[in-house]
């Protein structure tokens, strides 16, 4: 058996990479990818816990979260596409009509 700690460490690393990327990247697509990384880190957690708790809920949850992530990506792409059509770029630093 692989200790639970390894899974958690893996997911923590992936989550951190995603979070770091989300904070530092400015391209919409890359930010989206980073969010997907974070979601998948959570999925790893869920599945790992599920098998260690001997309970299927976590896996079912992971399944749901995968499909939600897909839907999220779809909407994200749609929005990015629309932005691209209007402004010819997806650099979020430059999308700043709104500010306080």
């Amino acid at each position, binding site marked *: 058996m692989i200790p639970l700690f390894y899974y958690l460490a893996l997911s923590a690393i992936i989550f951190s990479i995603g979070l770091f990327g989300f904070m530092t990247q400015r391209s919409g697509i890359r930010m989206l990818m980073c*969010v997907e990384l974070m979601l998948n880190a959570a999925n790893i957690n869920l599945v*790992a816990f599920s098998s260690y708790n001997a309970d299927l809920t976590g896996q079912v949850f992971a399944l749901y979260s995968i499909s939600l992530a897909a839907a999220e990506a779809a909407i*994200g792409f749609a929005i990015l596409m629309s*932005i691209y059509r209007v402004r010819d770029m997806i650099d979020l630093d430059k*999308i700043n009509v709104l500010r306080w």
Partner: protein
Amino acid sequence: MADLTLLTPELTLVGTGLVVLLIGLFLNTNAKKILGYLASLGVLASLVLVIMSLGREGMLFNDTLSFDALSQFFKIIFLSVALLVSIASIKYTEGNSHTEEFYSLMIFATAGMMFVASANDLMVLFVAFELASLATYALAGFEKKNPISLEASMKYFMIGSLSAALMLFGISFIYGATGTTSIPGVAANIDLLLGSPMGLLSVVLMIAGLGFKIALVPFHMWAPDTYQGSPSVVSSLLAAGSKKMGFVAAFKVFMIALIALQAEWTTAFAVLAVITMTLGNVVALSQTSVKRMLAYSSVAQAGYITMAFVVMSKTALAGAILYALSHGFMKAGAFIATGAVVYMVLSEKKDSETPDDIDNFRGLGRRMPVTALCMTIFLFALAGIPLTAGYMSKFVLFASTIEAGMVWLAVIAILNSAISLFYYARVVKYMYFLPSDGEKISEPKPYTFAMIIAAIFVLAIGFWSEPFLYWAMEAAKVLI
């Protein structure tokens, strides 16, 4: 066999959404106006069904959905807001070839919110939360040719998906430690979480994740942009509906599931509440865009409601829940009124960059008397002027803070609400006391209708608070 009739409001709503979408596919653009009426009717039917089911309780689908006073109260909030928005949108979507998408997305978002209100399981909570979020992302960017709307939607989407990821990560730890995702189950097994470092971690993640949705201060930066950039009717749904969804989720997660960890989170919420209301109010003072001002005000109002997490008495929760209801009507109404003004400005000047600028409110009392009057009511209610819904709920909420002995918190909240009066009063001043060069114009009827309904409820809650307060108390009993 569980009593599936409890689910009829949701089923009606989702059915309406599908039907609207389907019919819309086969209509040409001019005939799509009927969709607005259809959607409003469906939402109304669902609302009536929820009201009829008041007092009934039950569980469905292996106890993953619970129907109780709390969920019904919040469903009423969501459906009322949806009703207002769908009525107002009849004008907004006029002549738009994507009307059916607008209405179905709006309805699905509302359905998501309703399921959040009923969720008794973190899995259902998360899925429903996302359903509502996804639909609102798309709604925020509904004006596909308008870069501002798209930007709003983009920011909302980015932050929203981040919050979803944080939340999911937090839930995964809760699940890992307690071995269950059922909300009461988590509460029952909370010892397992208490003894592990995952407890604190999950609390932090959940606060951050839900904080984004509620727009608590360090997590609020999307809200002004999004509320300003989105179409007004959508901002109305976001501020009045989606935010309340965040609150009901937070109630369920913190008040029921993680109640044993309150030592960890009350302090955090206290700090967040204070910062949120102060920053929201102070920044709102200097805004020239009315929608942005309303957005900051809604950030501030989130701070008030968050006080309930600090006080945690029955009165405080009832106050917060009542506040959620009042705020639903006030904010929805205010955004719809702004929407009417924006509509008017855009119909006069097609390419206006800032149609919601406060300058456009000059002399509105003469140009659009009904809109101006309703807007005044909403703004005064938001400021907490007596005899409006806002006052009544602030009264209960602030009073409960003192009851719990947290005078400092009440003082801060009260001072904040004093500050808030200025920026609200400024809009009123512009509407009634500054001259304008425009002529009197006929007001868009659907907007007016929605506003009047909202105004009636704002006043009704202020004048005749007893039944609303009673319901809020009942709902609060579910939590404590």
